[in-house]
């Protein structure tokens, strides 16, 4: 235990020092004691918070696929001493009771869904689904990942864009003439969005369209049962909302408006696909419900991407930019007619 944790401790120390140095540069007053009397000047902690949030999502969603499969220091020391990889408990009395309790509560043992046996059997090296607590080695989070490397590439790409947005985040106090709440979906008028309230508004509209497209494509390209793998994508709307100074409550209501359609599309799945896929405690959840939920999540993500694009660009502006690429520019006079959506 002691020698192996010496090595682990050194790595931990280096990482800690790196993070502390970063925080000290970004927000030095976080490190100052005591917590009480400190000037509350300057912008909020948002930048540091976003950085840690992004780091959490990145490590949990992406880096964890490349984590080591070896046993950790404690397991290793146990194995060296006993020759077994795991000490087994008495299995009765307090131990048995607590183990049973934990098996009931833990719906993601070893950080993965209890997938149905059929899917498991086809994947080499991932065995022992039903012997719950020991799914795929120490590689936690392995099942969060979509299977194919090209998807990983797409996600990484999307996250790189996100990182770019994060780094471009404005350091000035929020603009009082930010986006008017009523105009976020008013496609006909450019509104204050077009005048560039934040650094997000100032980015070239074509770049924003491409980012939104990449985002939507990567969301759509997931396996129909993907659910946890989609969660990191919620970072994008969150970050754009925060950086673009958009009214979150209004935006959420607009997305909710579209939800019934997504639910209607997904509702047929539970009827046709009844194969049990996940167990959460005593409940069996069929593949149909999972894919239905996946459809809804995907709908939320894609709709928010589209709405946010409009929010940080203004519809006319993003459409007008396409004229550079040979599309017809929407005419000013058509703004009195019903929609301006047919421009491109």
């Amino acid at each position: 235990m002691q020698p192996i944790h010496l090595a682990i401790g050194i790595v931990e120390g280096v990482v800690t020092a790196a993070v502390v140095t970063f925080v000290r540069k970004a927000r030095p007053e976080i490190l100052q004691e005591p917590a009480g009397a400190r000037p509350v000047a300057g912008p909020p902690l948002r930048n540091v918070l976003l950085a840690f949030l992004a780091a959490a999502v990145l490590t949990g969603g992406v880096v964890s696929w490349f984590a080591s499969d070896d046993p950790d220091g404690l397991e290793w020391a146990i194995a060296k001493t006993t020759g077994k990889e795991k000490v087994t408990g008495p299995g009765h009395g307090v131990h048995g009771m607590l183990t049973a309790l934990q098996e009931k509560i833990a719906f993601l043992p070893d950080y993965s869904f209890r997938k149905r046996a059929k899917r498991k059997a086809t994947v080499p090296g991932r065995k022992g689904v039903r012997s719950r607590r020991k799914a795929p080695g120490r590689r936690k989070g392995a099942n969060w990942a979509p299977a194919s490397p090209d998807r990983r590439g797409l996600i990484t790409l999307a996250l790189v864009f996100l990182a770019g947005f994060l780094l471009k985040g404005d350091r000035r106090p929020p603009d009082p003439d930010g986006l008017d709440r009523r105009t976020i979906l008013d496609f006909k008028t450019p509104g204050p969005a077009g005048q560039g309230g934040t650094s997000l508004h100032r980015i070239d509209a074509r770049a924003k369209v491409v980012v939104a497209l990449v985002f939507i494509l990567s969301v759509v390209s997931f396996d129909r049962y993907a659910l946890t793998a989609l969660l990191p994508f919620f970072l994008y709307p969150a970050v754009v909302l925060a950086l673009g100074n958009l009214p979150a409550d209004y935006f959420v209501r607009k997305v909710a408006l579209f939800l019934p359609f997504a639910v209607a599309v997904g509702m047929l799945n539970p009827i046709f696909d009844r194969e049990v896929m996940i167990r959460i405690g005593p409940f069996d959840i069929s593949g149909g419900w999972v894919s239905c939920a996946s459809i809804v999540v995907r709908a939320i993500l894609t709709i928010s991407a589209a709405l946010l694009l409009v929010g940080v660009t203004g519809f006319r502006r993003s459409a007008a930019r396409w004229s550079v690429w040979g599309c017809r520019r929407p005419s000013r006079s058509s703004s009195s007619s019903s929609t301006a959506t047919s421009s491109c």
Partner: protein
Amino acid sequence: MHMADALLSPAVGGALWAASSGAIAHCSAKVRRDLDDRKVPLMGVLGAFLFAAQMINFSIPGTGSSGHLGGGLLLTILLGPHAAFLTIASVLVVQALFFADGGLLALGCNIFNLGFFPAFVAYPCVYRKIAGDGPGRARITVAAIAAAVAGLQLGALSVVLETVSSGITSLPFSTFRRPQCSRSTSPSGSWKGS
């Protein structure tokens, strides 16, 4: 370093549960009294960060072992000992309840080993002493490495002591403390996480 239930007797597990609960109660009272409101979101986000960081196992070359960050020291430096201890404890509770990482009986031990030592021993006794006030980059690095090593050594020793005092005879004190580094017995494909 998340212990499993099998390493503990109910008596030792219960005792450490009591110790950790006491520490949590003390920290809650302290945090309620004097935590800066602006640090609350930082606590939440750092908890999420810690959660994700603990999933990443980096391999230790030449041993066939791997390690993951405990993160206790980092949180303590950023949040102060009391808020950090609470954050670590909540992460460990979620891991034990929902992800079966670390046993329920062992939860008290895990909170104690991974939270108490970095927050209340390594940070005040090692990090603050070396780093002092307004430290530079080099001092921070030295202090962080020394404190992280100290915290983990204490935690690891504490795991051994808890196991031995539980009477788990298959893990004798001296050999469990210093296992030999030979790869011969470990076909690395056969490991199971706990």
